[in-house]
């Protein structure tokens, strides 16, 4: 029926051109980030101020936390569109707990457990029933946010304890926020997980060829299940941060975040087809998106116009290497 492709040469180490291509992707991101940083500091006198720069980090820390787990998930060849809905559901559950008189530790626990539970639900549907993740998570995206709407309707939960505000509004040292510290710790942890452990190698193996990975003894289903749980967990953590920062819960909280998170991951050089990507790229992409939105915000550019720049950035950064390769190849 179908031709079996000829066996490919598998080197012990990745050869040079490939390595330099990866290097140049991140180099490209660094160049873009530096350029935007420079343009911003020329364009607005308020930009190069420690407090401004500290505010800037809030633009990407919450989405960035989810983007790390999402990067692993996309590398393995799956996707999760329900992350923003998980935030809404976890936040709603925390709001209910507040009405019942729960304290800060219980709230954090609830946010994280609800996130983990939602992720596990996605994972079960995808791995146990063998369903395509893009469709499953479009469904659970409606389901999770739908439950939040059923519970809250057009109401809002308020009255979070003052100690709860630390997670989204607190500073660890001078202008360094708790969110930024968490983001950096998560970056290190995920970088280690993806690039330094056998689990990370398995994620790449699954993304490149799930069947071959299966025949090589990788438990594909279980690994993917863990990745969905991780993505749910990070969404739960992000929910704690956002709820704490806003101090209230509406069912429309974090609407549209899923596409921004995926944009961040793809901008970071993770192949949407799976099998390639790095955490460093995602960190850089998070910085770039934060810089663009914050810099334009200082110039009084409305949010909707900023989204044009983010969209253009996504397409141009993806298209540039392809056009460049083609131009060089044509000569």
């Amino acid at each position, binding site marked *: 029926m*179908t031709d079996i492709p000829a066996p490919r040469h598998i080197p012990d180490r990745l050869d040079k051109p490939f390595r330099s291509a990866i290097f140049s992707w991140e180099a490209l991101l660094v160049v873009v980030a530096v350029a935007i940083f420079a343009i911003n500091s020329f364009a607005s006198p308020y930009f190069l101020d420690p407090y401004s720069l500290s505010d800037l980090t809030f633009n990407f820390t919450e989405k960035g936390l989810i983007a790390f787990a999402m990067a692993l998930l996309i590398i393995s060849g799956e996707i999760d569109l329900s992350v923003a809905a998980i935030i809404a559901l976890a936040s709603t559950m925390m709001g209910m707990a507040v009405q019942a008189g729960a304290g800060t530790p219980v709230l954090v626990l609830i946010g994280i457990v609800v996130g983990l539970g939602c992720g596990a639900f996605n994972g079960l549907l995808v791995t146990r029933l063998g369903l395509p993740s893009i*469709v499953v998570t479009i469904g659970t995206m*409606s389901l999770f946010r739908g439950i939040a709407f059923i519970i809250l309707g057009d109401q809002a939960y308020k009255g979070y304890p003052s100690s709860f505000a630390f997670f989204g509004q607190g500073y660890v040292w001078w202008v360094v926020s708790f969110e930024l510290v968490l983001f950096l710790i998560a970056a290190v942890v995920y970088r280690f997980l993806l690039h330094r452990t056998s689990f990370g190698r398995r994620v790449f193996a699954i993304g490149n060829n799930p069947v071959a990975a299966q025949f090589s003894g990788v438990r594909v289903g279980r690994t993917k299940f863990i990745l969905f749980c991780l993505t749910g967990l990070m969404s739960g953590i992000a929910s704690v941060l956002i709820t704490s920062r806003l101090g209230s819960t509406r069912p429309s909280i974090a609407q549209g975040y899923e596409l921004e998170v995926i944009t961040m991951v793809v901008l970071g050089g993770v192949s949407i087809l799976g099998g390639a990507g790095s955490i460093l790229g995602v960190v850089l992409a998070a910085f770039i998106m934060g810089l663009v939105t914050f810099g334009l915000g200082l110039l009084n550019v409305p949010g909707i116009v900023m989204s044009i720049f983010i969209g253009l950035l996504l397409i141009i950064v993806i298209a540039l290497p392809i056009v460049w390769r083609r131009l060089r190849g044509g000569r």
Partner: protein
Amino acid sequence: MKAFLKYREIWLFAAIVVLIGLISTRFPAFADPGNLRQVFNDTSILMILALGQMVVILTRSIDLSMASNLCFTGMVVAMLNAAHPAIPIPLLIVIALLVGLVLGAINGLLVWRLNIPSIVVTLGTLTIYRGATFVLSGGAWVNADKMSADFIGFQRAAFLGIPVLSWIAILVIALFFILMTRTALGRSIYAIGVNPTASVYAGIDVGRTKFIVFCISGMIGGLSGYLWISRYVIASVEVANGYELNIIAACVIGGISIAGGIGSVGGAVLGALFLGIISNALPVINISPFWQMAISGSAIILAVVLNARGERQQGRIILRKVEAVT
């Protein structure tokens, strides 16, 4: 194969009949022919959009920018109408189709010429087109009082007792039916979805066909732009925000496989009708509209579970990714 597809649509049709039956136990007037015609009319735009999305999904691609395209084109025709009320409506519809075509062609060119995955391209253009709407309008709204009476009235006029909007939907359904079952383009769309490599050997230009399907979905987005704006008589940046996922949901419920190659015009129409009936029924049977999201979410998951059981009988496709690359 064909009997199997038919089986699935009959199945979905039965589910819709049962749904209408259940609703009419609570609210008997719901099953009235007059009311069902109204539901069909209310769902027309979603049906048209689902058909446009269907041809894209069949080729293993996806168009996330349809709702933004709708928003942009709707704003263009609304502003044209507000500035030049003399432009006849049929010409305005042609303009909407052309604007949509251009937006779709941009998606298609990026997918065809640069080989960027369609989900990435349309994720980008989703935000770009909606942002462009803001730039075009300066954030202002076009209200009912700025639109001409023809602009609003055209789709509401009755022809043979049925509103023009419903007739447009019927026409689009008929055109897609002919396209998918009677033309070479329709066959190649299915072929690409089932096996892109084999399609190349069969002489099909995969890239060019993908370009064409994005042009089709773009034109559908543009047409829906006019229909949407003249139906809800307001053009703003917020129009149809997030609606792209409803369109995909209608396709999924209609049994169109996200992996490409499986699906039919009847399925897309029934999938859209299923969602339309739910949203129309909730208010009349006294369920809070806040339940709608969770219900359609559950319907999507249920539909995928049921459809996956059917697809599995086709046997395993080994090394799909490698095939797609070579």
